[in-house]
């Protein structure tokens, strides 16, 4: 199209008609980026009926003209948001829902968070966590007004409170203590014994002890239905092959980073679906490995349910599970995230609580 015809569309005699048409046909693309989507669904369902404003969710980006960013945008999602935005025809608009979309909200200092306004131009923000459906519909009304008048108007002014005057039942609410108390070199122990009244557990432990003779370092009852088995890394495969006869699935694969002891603890928490008595029992099989050479045998051959959990732990801690074919690949994290973010030497920004005027 030549510039003339574009001008004609925007300011010619038919321009009001075009604006009117756009106003009543705002179609948001399906981009449920996070939990705010719950309230969006309410806004477009029978309770609030967003459709009466001429707005209805639609699946394909190329036939829509509005993105409602439903809360948190992660590094991985930022690219998708940009691509979806580029695919949409002009004129197009962006509404951002939720505290996460503003400045990160609850996750403001997370390592995987992005502000949507850094990625696409935003027309309206809706505060709330999650915002109510009414608030969302109000944003749509505001956008319609903006389309007609060309001006964006703020629809809400928050009252300023003097925090020192707030008084609940004669008490001034306390702020969360800040800064928090971190112990610099804490002791870490995952098998603290506990005296419990659990006769089946005592029997089970006796059986396990004779079964696993010579392979474990210690077996402890840590709570009712909870058993911890400490082992050496080299014995773990032999232990797993014996344990997998009783316990058929993995409940948890976990890594704990202890930099001041130069080690990682790797835990497999296993349990059973097939034997009724063993169902509530969770056995924690754990071993220590050196922090500078974090390698551990993959136990996914015995328990296929451990596969994705091991990949996740590689992503977050960099523990290499030998035998898992997907090691060395990113699974959850975006390509531009700093690697192994859950290690203790990776620092997030601290939050500080202070009185603001």
């Amino acid at each position, binding site marked *: 199209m030549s510039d003339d015809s574009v001008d004609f569309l925007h300011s010619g005699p038919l321009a009001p008609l075009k604006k009117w048409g756009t106003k009543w046909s705002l179609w948001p693309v399906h981009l449920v980026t996070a939990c705010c989507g719950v*309230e969006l669904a309410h806004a477009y*369902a029978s309770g609030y009926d967003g459709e009466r404003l001429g707005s209805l969710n639609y699946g394909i980006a190329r036939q829509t003209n509005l993105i409602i960013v439903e809360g948190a945008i992660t590094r991985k999602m930022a690219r998708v948001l940009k691509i979806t935005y580029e695919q949409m025809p002009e004129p197009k608009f962006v509404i951002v829902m939720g505290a996460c979309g503003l400045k990160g909200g609850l996750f403001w200092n997370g390592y*995987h968070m992005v502000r949507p306004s850094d990625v696409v131009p935003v027309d309206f923000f809706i505060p709330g966590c999650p915002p109510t459906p009414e608030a969302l519909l109000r944003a749509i009304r505001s956008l319609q007004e903006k389309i007609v008048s060309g001006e964006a108007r703020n629809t809400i002014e928050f009252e300023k409170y003097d925090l020192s005057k707030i008084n609940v039942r004669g008490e001034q609410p*306390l702020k969360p203590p800040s800064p928090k108390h971190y112990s610099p070199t804490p002791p870490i122990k995952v098998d603290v014994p506990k005296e419990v009244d659990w006769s089946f557990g005592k029997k089970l432990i006796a059986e396990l002890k004779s079964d696993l003779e010579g392979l474990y370092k210690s077996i402890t009852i840590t709570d009712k239905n909870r058993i911890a088995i400490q082992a050496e890394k080299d014995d773990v495969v032999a232990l797993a092959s014996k344990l997998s006869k009783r316990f058929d*699935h993995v409940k948890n694969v976990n890594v704990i980073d202890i930099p001041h002891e130069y080690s990682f603890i790797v835990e497999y928490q296993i349990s059973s679906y097939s034997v009724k008595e063993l169902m509530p029992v*969770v056995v924690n099989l754990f071993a220590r490995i050196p922090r500078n050479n974090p390698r551990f045998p993959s136990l996914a051959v015995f328990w296929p349910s451990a596969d994705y959990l091991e990949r996740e732990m590689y992503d977050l801690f960099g523990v290499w599970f030998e035998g898992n074919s997907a090691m060395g690949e990113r699974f959850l994290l975006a390509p531009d995230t700093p690697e192994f973010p859950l290690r203790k030497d990776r*620092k997030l920004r601290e*939050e500080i609580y202070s009185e603001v005027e």
Partner: protein
Amino acid sequence: MEEIVLDVPVQPPTELFLPVPKKFLEDAYKGDDYLVLVGPQHPGSGHMRIILRIKGDVIVEAIPDPGYVHRSMEKLAETRLYIQNIPLFERPAIMDTGNVTLGYVRAMEKALDVEVPERAKYIRVILAELSRIGTHLYDAGILAVFLGHTTGFMWPFALREPIVEAITRISGARITSSFIIPGGIRRDVPWNVLEFVRKTTFVLERRLKSFEKIFIKNPTVIERLKEVGVLSREEAIRFGLVGPFLRASGVEYDLRAVEPYEVYDSLNWEIPVSDEGDSYSRFLVRVEEISQSISIIRQAVNELRRIPEGKVISEDILQEYAEVASADIRGFFFRVFGELTLPLGEFTSLTEASRGTLLYSIISDGESNVPYRARVITPGWYYLKGFMEALRGERLADLQAIYGSFGYFPPEADR
């Protein structure tokens, strides 16, 4: 130890394509199968990418690419007070607020060894079951969207409105209530609200009958879901399925019965189980659970008639504030919980959330007022493997039905 700051600025993407791992492309190029990418932006709910290898129109392999909603919860938890992590750990699945917060709070209570007042236990169960019904309805609605059945979406969401209203009257927030705290609940629930909750269950029951006619027993729906995405009992166990999806494959495993918490062992209810293992039975098991939850809520409200109002937070937690705050914590929150420290050790709680097993494992060093490490595994993350295996050997057109029947909710799975 050298410290690395994670606060790296994000560069908005400049090239507009999504990288597909090379090895999949080469494999597909050499073989005679296609590579189909589903998502991340797709017409369902939530975002993940599934890379499908297709022969004809049969799925040979489904490779997941999750993490689009990974909000770094486990790391963030290490920088916040134990008590501040309650809203954080509610965010994986906010429609399931009762169950997700209950899981985390129970892990803390295990460590502190506190006994919760009976009244609080019943109110917690009511909140958990309301959330369960709400989540099952939510997923039924999303399943309907996947099948292109708009009426089937509208009905469950209309049914969710009274539930949301009930949760609002109990806690003051529509969706994110964070109402459950260590030792009890934030404040007592007055009698007229409990009566409202009881009446809500009758509304739900009546309207569910019409939903049954419109969607559940609808021949088109049955045709789309029956014998699609079958997982046998052995497969379900091997891939570590959880919750209603495990029960749909014939394993009678419900943590509310296996390791009873709160007051579930004193109430009468059944565990719906099916042997089919297909998409339809996964859906039916959840529908059946709604009626069980309704009955649990009514029993709990009846039990609450005999327990006097006024004490919903444990005295072991409140200590010197027991006089003033045992029915309402407002004004004393950080006085009571600000310096909360757990003893040394690892504390694992298992909870039956709406979509299945929810695990919280807190590793405490016994000295700090923040967790040393907090591990959370949500149901979605557990059954992702089973979900991918269920796709294998099915037709491409059945992908939506299987996806919907699992109610896969990426914010929950990615945390």
